[in-house]
Structures are given as structure tokens and as C-alpha cells.
């Protein structure tokens, strides 16, 4: 059985993380994603990264694996023509430059639609293709700040919290949904279209209910780990250094089950805690009591004991715990991939299982720069060896 998006071809001009994560998801689902780079502008993962202390290129990355790689120098007019030939054979063109950059290069939606009338074009940007702020440069923490998610996240008495790569990748997953919707319309009507994804709006979409409160005239504030109704609800200390356990109790039945596991049956009848309202009103006292119990327990053991009696709980997992988890591995949410030197490492798979698509997921590691030019230039575009060599000589394929 082929992967579900088998047959869809994407010319991928995206850079950084948000756009590439979109095409990464689609490639795992079977789309043929042709990543366009050049030696002048290699992907961020081909370079050292001072922020994270990576002194050489990544050997594997989560946003380019399974893609095909070709080189095109977009600074050369012939590079623009070559790009158009690629787009002419593609269903989707994807980009994530600042708005206006693709048009200045001669690769804007109108120019590409001229070579591929039913093209679905994806443009991912910090603030969208229109509006007064559309020229703003941005990264994940800025999307989170503009969108309101950073302001609402954090301790009640502390500052807002900086959103990190989860923000980029949420943008990418939204973009994948929008691209698929546009492809469905193309299949039905023959019409392509420009899909314009704004990263700050994706951040805002994660707090739609708070924005409604604001529209109604009330101003929500950050509340740490508190829930406006549930108690106990929070992250409690567990045995060991920096170990934590999340617990959320939503009903009287869950409360009674919790007191049973804690061995404090008498609390179930304590007037401070007999109703959800009372538990919430007295939640600080309750947090103290629950913490006094959790701090004696190994976090995963405690979570299992609580789940066994129907109380929602989970240890606060570190990355190694996630990578080793049998449940995530059974679901192929965590998979193993091989590095070029054969070393095995954990990677994150595509977040779904399909009954008729068991082979979805990562097929290959990060491609070498230009690794798939024989296929793309030779087979797909039918370019003769001499033509390719001339373009290499002219630093167009570069």
C-alpha cells in the first residue's frame, strides 16, 4: 500500500522551522517533497548552531528527513527559471520568506501560477501576507508574544513565558491542514490557490476562548498551573531531584479515589474538600497535603497507581523517558532512525496511525545537499548531463 499522499509533489523553498515542519509532515504522509537549497544558503541544520552549541552540521534533523534535496541558486536569473520548471511539475510550492521576497525573486504566486495555473502555493510568515505588520521579521518567541500565548503563560506573580519550537511546529502542522484542504478543493474544482499562514495568528488560535473573554470586556491573566475549577490540579514534587507529578482531579469520584490511594480516607469527609467548589476554594491547603504525599513517591509509580483507580495523572517526563517509552514506541510516535554511520537514534514520527497506511513516517534521514539531482534534474526535468554541467559551471546549480 502506498502512503496516502503518494503522487503529490511539493517544491519546497521553506526555511527555518515552521514551513519545513509542514512539508516534513506531508513528506512522511507520502508527498514527494523536493527541498531547494544552495551552497550559498544551506539549510540551518547544515550549519553550526551557536545557540545550541552544535559545532558542526546536524547528522539528522526532524524537519528535512525523507525530503529530496536539490541545489538552486536563487540569486541567478537562470536559477529562477529552473525553479519555475520545477514548480511546473509540482502540485504545491511552499515558501516561508518574509512577505515580498518571493515576488522580488520572480517566484511570487502570480509568476508561479503563470507556469502552473492550478498551483497550491503555501506562504508561511510571522504575521501573514497582508496587514500593516506583514513585513515584521519573527521567530517562535515573537509569534508567541504577539499572539497572546506568551502573556497568558507563566506564574501568576511572574513574567510572561517565551514560547519555543513548539510554536514553530504548531504553525507547520496548521499549514499542513490548510494545504491539504486546498488540494481537496483543487481536486473538486480544478482551482488552486494561495494559502497564507500567519504564525502569530496560529499562536492566537490556541487561546480562542481567552480572546472571547477579552472581546466581552474581561481581561484574563496568567494563572500558573491553576485550573479555574479543578483541585487538586497541578505539578507536585515527587521523590528525587527535580522530579514532578501532574495530577488533575475533576470529579468527586476522582477525589475519593485519590484519597483512597493516599490512604487518607478521612479527607474524603473533610468539609474543606467535600465538594469541587470547596476543594477549589481551599486548593492551597490541598496542594500542601497532596505534595506531602507525592514527595515520597517515584513519579511514574505514583502515576500508575493513580491511573489504576481512574485519577488523571502523569509524571513530568524528561526527554530520555519519552524516547524510551513503550507506549509511544508501540504507536510509532517515537521511531528509531539510523545515522549515516549506522548509529541508531530516536526520532519523532508522524502523529497519527492509519489503518490503511501503516508505512507512513520517516523513510530516510536528512538528505545530503543536492543528493537527488539525478532524479529531479535527470528524470523529472529531463535535463541532459551537459545542460546540468553548464548550470553547475555557471553556479546556478550550486
Amino acid at each position: 500500500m502506498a502512503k496516502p499522499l503518494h503522487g503529490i509533489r511539493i517544491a519546497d523553498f521553506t526555511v527555518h522551522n515552521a514551513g519545513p515542519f509542514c512539508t516534513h509532515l506531508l513528506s512522511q504522509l507520502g508527498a514527494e517533497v523536493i527541498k531547494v537549497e544552495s551552497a550559498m544558503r544551506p539549510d540551518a541544520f547544515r550549519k553550526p548552531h551557536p545557540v545550541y552549541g552544535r559545532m558542526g552540521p546536524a547528522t539528522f534533523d526532524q524537519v528535512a528527513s525523507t525530503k529530496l534535496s536539490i541545489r538552486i541558486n536563487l540569486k541567478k536569473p537562470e536559477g529562477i527559471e529552473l525553479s519555475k520548471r520545477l514548480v511546473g511539475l509540482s502540485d504545491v510550492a511552499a515558501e516561508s520568506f518574509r512577505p515580498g521576497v518571493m515576488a522580488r525573486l520572480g517566484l511570487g504566486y502570480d509568476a508561479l501560477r503563470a507556469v502552473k495555473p492550478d498551483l497550491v502555493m503555501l506562504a508561511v510568515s510571522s504575521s501573514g501576507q497582508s496587514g500593516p505588520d506583514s513585513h515584521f521579521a519573527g521567530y517562535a518567541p515573537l509569534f508567541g508574544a504577539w499572539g497572546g500565548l506568551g502573556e497568558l503563560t507563566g506564574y501568576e506573580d511572574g513574567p510572561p513565558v517565551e514560547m519555543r519550537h513548539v510554536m514553530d511546529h504548531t504553525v507547520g502542522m496548521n499549514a499542513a491542514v490548510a494545504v491539504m484542504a486546498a488540494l481537496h478543493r483543487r481536486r473538486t474544482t480544478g482551482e488552486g490557490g494561495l494559502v497564507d499562514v500567519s504564525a502569530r495568528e496560529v499562536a492566537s488560535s490556541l487561546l480562542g476562548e481567552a480572546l472571547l473573554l477579552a472581546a466581552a470586556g474581561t481581561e484574563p491573566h496568567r494563572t500558573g498551573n491553576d485550573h479555574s475549577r479543578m483541585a487538586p490540579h497541578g505539578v507536585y514534587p515527587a521523590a528525587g531531584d527535580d522530579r514532578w507529578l501532574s495530577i488533575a482531579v475533576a470529579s468527586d469520584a476522582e477525589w475519593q479515589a485519590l484519597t483512597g490511594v493516599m490512604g487518607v480516607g478521612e479527607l474524603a469527609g473533610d468539609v474543606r474538600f467535600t465538594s469541587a467548589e470547596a476543594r477549589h476554594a481551599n486548593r492551597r491547603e490541598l496542594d500542601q497535603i497532596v505534595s506531602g504525599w507525592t514527595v515520597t513517591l517515584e513519579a511514574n509509580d505514583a502515576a500508575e497507581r493513580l491511573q489504576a483507580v481512574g485519577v488523571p495523572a502523569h509524571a513530568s517526563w524528561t526527554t530520555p523517558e519519552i524516547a524510551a517509552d513503550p507506549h509511544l514506541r508501540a504507536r510509532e510516535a517515537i521511531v528509531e532512525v539510523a545515522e549515516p554511520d549506522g548509529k541508531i537514534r530516536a526520532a519523532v514520527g508522524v502523529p497519527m496511525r492509519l489503518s490503511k497506511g501503516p508505512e507512513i513516517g520517516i523513510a530516510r534521514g536528512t538528505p545530503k545537499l543536492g543528493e537527488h539531482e539525478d532524479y529531479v534534474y535527470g528524470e523529472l526535468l529531463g535535463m541532459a548531463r551537459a545542460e546540468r554541467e553548464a548550470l553547475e559551471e555557471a553556479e546556478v546549480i550550486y
Partner: protein
Amino acid sequence: MSNAPLTGLRVVANASGVAAAYAARLLGTLGAETILVEPLQGSALRDEPPFLDADEDVSALFAYLAAGARSFVCDVTSDAGRAALGGLLSEADIFIDDTLPAERTALGLDEEAIAARHPDLIHVSALPFGSHGPKAGWKAHEINLQHASGEGNLLPNGLSVEMFPDRPPVKIYGHFAELQGGIAAALGALSALWVRPELGGQYVDVASQDAALAVGAFAIQRLGDGSIEHRVERSFRYGGVIPCADGYVELLTLEQRQWHGLVKLLGDPEWALDPALDDSLERSRQGPLINTHIRAWAAVRKVEDIVREGQKLSVPLAKYYTPAEVVRDPHEAVRGLFQPVEIAGAGVLNMLVSPFHVSGEPLHLRAGPPALGEYRLPSANTAANVEA
């Protein structure tokens, strides 16, 4: 006829949780007709905070998640209710369900039963831990999911963890992980639908845990590179959340020209002109010292002034907007991010429509949230309708 991309598709959602409801919301906003199946007393989401009224009758969360959907009341524990749901599903393209795995077989909602009766239906399961795997039966609320998927343990970072290093990790606002489950479910639905002409219907198993992990994939990537992320160290060495005289800005300079812009913004102070700081690795090493200077400079300035001047110099800076500022943001007014919708009990309010445009214009919500049971089956099945 609407030009919304999923016009003509029909989605039925049996949703008591955020993930399943948000998947339907996304597909509905993209043009699908969505029908929310609710029990006699209404979906549990109608009782979820926050509320738009003092009596806690009007859930803002439900309003946001169910906007544009129809509401069909149907008691799936009864034969008549199951027959009615079967009628709906026979005319649907996509069914999104978050019934607990242990309860599905008795209700005829398990994978095999649905596939047998509706061979062309895309059947999407959206659960906290998925419907397969050793933890499929585990229960989770949002805070549990964030801690089961990685980001929970990694926040807060930057200024917040600097100020409160001994506090427990703090969750991302709202329903972050569950919404990721919804986005992944929508993607799964559309991917399965794409291949339906060849393969017919199929079952899509989505876990909010998997989806939240997917967007946090870089932590796993770095583990493979040999480093384990921790919230205390996971900070940019300088910049980040900067307290100003009247609020906070986010500052992040990753490129050399942005650093030069920042130095100019700070007024070319002597410390910043040290040639050693021209090297990005040296700046990382001296990050805490650089931040001391930046914070002292920002503490006596207003957010708006810093952002305005910084943008002129192409320094990536953003104000930490409050929800009210997002709602009245002139940029978003031009983009049509919000649309007034009627919410019974709360009046007409501006609601976020969608974070993307398709074909150069914003998408459109059909309506606000539906009244319970306002949708009735066409006449042939009227007997199966159940009064709320």
C-alpha cells in the same frame, strides 16, 4: 456557493473533549458542514470554563470550539439514538469520535463496527493517549498531557525560571496539547480522505500526546545529538523576555545584522562596542552580562517606544500582547482574524476565525455556537430525533 476549500464535505463529531471538537472546528471553518452529536444534556464542553457570564451558563471554550457547527441531540446509549447516528454517518465523509476505547464496542462505535457499516467513512479517533498501545485506557487532562509529551517539563524558561528556579514547571496556557491533537486529527482526516478514491474509508488513530510530542520534536532531536534539554538551560543566552517600564518585550537576535541593529538601538554603548562581541559565540558566553545591560536600559523605557525604534532597525522585537490587545490589534483588523458572531446569552462578540487565509481572503464562520439540538434529521428519520 461558497469557495471555502472543503465545501461539500460533511463531518460528524461525537466530541466531549477539546481535541475532537477542535478537529471538527478546523474542518468546519475550512468549509465542511459539521454536525456535533450531543447527549440529551449537551456536550460536556458546554460546561467547561472559562465562561462568558456570571452564572456560568455560557462557555467561552464551547463557543470557540463549536462555532459554525450544527447540534444534533442523540442518545447513543439507546437503540433509537444509535440508529439516528447511523443515519447521520451514512451521509458523512468524516466521523470524529472521542468515546473512551472501553465504551466503544457496546455503543457500536468501535473501529470494526464502523468500518463494516460505513465502508467509505473516514473514522477519526481523537483521544489523549490514542486508541492503541499500552496506555490507551489512561485518562488525562491538559496538564497531564503537557507533562506526558515533553514541553511540560521544559517550561518555564528564560526570565521566569531565572526568577523562580525552585518552583514546579509551569504549563502552557489553555489547551495547548489537546489542540495539537485536534490539528493532527484534522490532518489525518484530510490525508485519509485524499486517498479514499483508491482505498475507501479507513480508521485514523490520533493521540494528543503524540501530537504535542511531534511539535516538541527538537528535544528528541537534541537527545540524539547528545544533549538533554532542561528548562533552566534552555534559554537564549541574551534577549528573551525583557521587563520594561510598562510591560514586557520579547527580544531575539540570531543574525549578525540584528545584533548590530540592537547595539544601535541601545545607543552604541561602550560595552557593546567591544570587538570581542562581534563574535556570536563570544556573545553567547557573555550572554548574562549582555542581558544585565539590556535590562537596565529597558527598565526605564516604555514597550511601545522600544518596539517602534527597534523595528526601524530591523531588530526582532515583539510586545507581549494581552488578549485584549490581540482582539483590537489594527493588523488583525486588516487581516480579518476576528468575525462578529452571535453567542446566545452573551450577545454578539468578535471571535477568532482561522490562522490562515486560502485564496487571499480570510475564511468565514457560518455562525456562533449552536443551540442544543437545533439540527433535525431530514423527514425520513424524524422519528429518531430525540427532544432535548
